[in-house]
């Protein structure tokens, strides 16, 4: 059966430039990513063939200059994450049949990462983030001599979701927070952070939780769920991030904007049954953090001018006591 595959091509200056039509600039916030050309290939492959099969076929028999990273072809090595129709996916497990839309499938390097050539992006940001969460066991002392640590199997099974991560980087490629803040640690690295934090054999739990609670850490995730959706291995990075947040708060690492923001949110709902946007920002930043408070003034002024400032007197919903009762039932923290 014949498939139409449109491939985003790019070669760095100094190398022969690829064929194809120059594509448009990318949407915000990727408007500065280099523009690419798009080349259309027609390939004959069976009905069940994967997008990677098409790319390999093109590279072997149509155009040897097409650069693609791939090794295992079966979602183990993590080499081949890229954009398929604008979303990060492993091409080795993406069926042509399922991804052909309007008669074609569009494959390209994601604009969220620096590009090397064609479908090969520079994964340095991904590896740097991984490195910065100190992804290795800090052994709890004493290390048992000549035998293993005794830990329940459930504690190991709890980590297998992250250990299934193949570092393909799809989650980072499509992460909305990373798109606007290059310093955000990102889904995969934070999932890895959870893996070592929650390992009963690790001695640095508190050190880790403090570090991951700082800016660019767990609280900078905006819960868009892109990472959960694009992950090919079911790692669900957001779930790991939420577990880290809970561990951090439970361990008392609450003196940070993220926890204050969550607390302010909850307190407002507890006390009035709805969100008080007027107090949310000051409380998140810290009431006595005058420099940060002053920085928000221009934004507040813009809101005022646009008529979007929340009412100065925040109304409660009727029967707010019932909300308070819910909070009492949830637990200690918000009584």
């Amino acid at each position: 059966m014949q498939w139409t595959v449109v491939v985003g091509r790019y070669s760095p200056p100094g190398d022969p430039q690829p064929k194809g039509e120059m594509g448009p600039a990318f949407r915000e916030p990727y408007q500065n990513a280099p523009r690419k050309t798009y080349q259309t290939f027609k390939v004959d492959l069976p009905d069940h063939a994967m997008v990677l099969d098409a790319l390999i076929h093109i590279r072997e028999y149509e155009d040897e200059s097409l650069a693609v990273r791939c090794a295992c072809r079966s979602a183990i090595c993590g080499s081949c994450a890229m954009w398929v129709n604008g979303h990060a996916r492993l091409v080795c497990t993406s069926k042509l049949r399922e991804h052909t839309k309007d008669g074609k499938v569009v494959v390209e390097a994601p604009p969220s990462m620096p590009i090397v050539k064609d479908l090969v992006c520079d994964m340095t940001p991904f590896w740097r983030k991984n490195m910065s969460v100190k992804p290795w066991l800090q052994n709890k002392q004493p290390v048992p001599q000549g035998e293993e640590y005794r830990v329940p199997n459930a504690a190991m099974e709890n980590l297998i979701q992250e250990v299934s991560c193949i570092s393909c980087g799809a989650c980072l490629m499509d992460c909305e927070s990373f798109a606007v803040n290059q310093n955000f640690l990102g889904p995969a690295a934070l999932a890895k952070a959870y893996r070592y934090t929650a390992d009963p054999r690790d001695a640095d739990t508190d050190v880790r939780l403090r570090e991951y609670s700082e800016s660019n850490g767990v609280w900078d995730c905006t819960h868009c769920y892109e990472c959960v959706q694009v992950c090919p291995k079911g790692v669900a990075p957001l779930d790991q991030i939420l577990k880290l947040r809970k561990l951090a708060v439970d361990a008392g690492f609450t003196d940070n904007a993220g926890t204050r923001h969550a607390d302010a949110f909850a307190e407002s709902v507890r006390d009035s049954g709805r969100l008080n946007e007027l107090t949310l920002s000051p409380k998140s930043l810290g009431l006595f953090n005058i420099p940060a408070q002053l920085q928000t003034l221009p934004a507040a002024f813009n809101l005022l001018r646009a008529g979007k400032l929340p009412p100065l007197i925040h109304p409660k919903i009727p029967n707010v006591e019932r909300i308070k009762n819910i909070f009492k039932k949830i637990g200690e923290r918000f009584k």
Partner: protein
Amino acid sequence: MESAVIIDHDVVVIGAGLAGMRAALEAARNGAQVAVVSKVHPVRSHSGAAQGGINAAIAAGDSWETHAFDTIKGSDYLADQDAVEIMCREAPGDIIELEHMGVIFYRNEDGKLGTRAFGGASKARTYFVGDITGQALLYALYDQLLKAGCKVYEEWFVTSLWMVDGACRGAVALDMIKGDLALLRAKAVIVASGGMGRVYEPSTNALICTGDGIALAYRAGAPVMDMEMVQYHPTTLKGSGFLMTEAARGEGAYLLNNKGERFMLTYAPTMKELASRDVVSRAETQEIAAGRGVDLCVLLDLRHLGADVVLKKLPQIHEMALDFLNIDMLKDPVPVRPGMHYIMGGVKTDAGARTPVPGLYAAGECACVSVHGGNRLGANSLLDTLVFGRHGGRNAAADVKKVTAMPSDSAGEQLLAAEQRRVQSLCDRPVTGESHAKLRLQLGTLMDEKVGVYRDEAGLRDALAQINDLQKRFETVAVRDRSRVFNQALTFALELGFMLDCAEATVISAIDRTESRGAHYRTDYPQRNDAQWLKHIEVTRRDGAASAISYLPVTITKWQPQERKY
């Protein structure tokens, strides 16, 4: 290329899978200044595809001697027993070390390490993490490598070894991102670049398993050994040829023919589906040849294991059967066939991972100690990588202290210039030349057809003639990419050269061994012949002449060869 780049290290490790990373860690721990060079990022290495587990005799009632005996019997008595003893004695220490590195091994109710059964083993001694054991180990070692601050040249492709006065003193590598060659000068080079699965088509191996290190060492004068011993895994997925772990049968899965019979009950009444891989692969081939197959496959049946076992202990293969065949193994059996999986042979080393070439070491699948002999047991390959990677790292670190005279910068610059000319001439060939992909496919199909589960003289001679023809055509292979950056057409052409060398050594050895032993089954010599063939075949390359065959005795310590029954 602008100016010659020469970078100095004590030890350079080629390959960043389990053997390579373990070697690098050990060399660093022993005070060597070490670097790893790999054509892919370390976590992309093919070690990560190992599913089932890693063997060690730790549990009460098991012993290293039993593990050694199972390994030797599995090898059809071709393994060197002194080396097997070392591997099996040291295995428990390596498992515990991995556990201390953070590997999340499966536990028993009492929180201690738990095991599963595996093929050819008389006791359940396979330690595992679901069906992603290789991946779990690979990441644990990578994390340790990061912790140690070890230098890794990622996506650097080694084109040749630097030989000076018969000793290995480094490697020339292509930085694929920049497109420049550099010389990594070193007092010791450890080859740990994995297997050569792509010499066969199909194969369970990744596209990167092209025998680079084996060919590099072979070209540098190191002998290769047991190359005729090529393992076909009994359960590879229909079509794609992907691996369905032996752990499936370890957990109790059946193999069925088209009549729904568990045919292994006939071929191996005691061990049944868990006989050694060579035995099961031959049985399947016979069933299929006798017309009892299903689309040239047999069926792997996991339905009776239940959802809990499959989804918790074998989730990856469940997903793969869904992805690639649209079969839910909870509801239907999965068609599988024997597929090329592993090579027992490789660069000949002693039990300390030293090759006969000074300064050159080898470990992992590319090496041949020999601990696997004629047939490797499942879950012994991960063990092999760790034990002999460790020995290689430690011995290299010790040996480099004795190396005082190193070749000069000008000698290095000359070498780099010559290698640059060689690579450039490859790139400058007319684009009308042969296609690397077409030649590779021809080679692979040829090897699968003539040098597979069953072999005979006529087929092997034909294979050799065809390989020699492919070698001639290789001289005109074109590189149809003029880029400097990430020129894969160039690296694929270089890989094809490596693969042809590996294939030739394999076929030469297979022609020579006129008996049937382990994975090497000659229909024209169906019996094992200990009187004549209880020895290793070594092949050494000679410039301008046919490769030379020589023999090495098998080391027997306490296990005399007996008839092999499962």
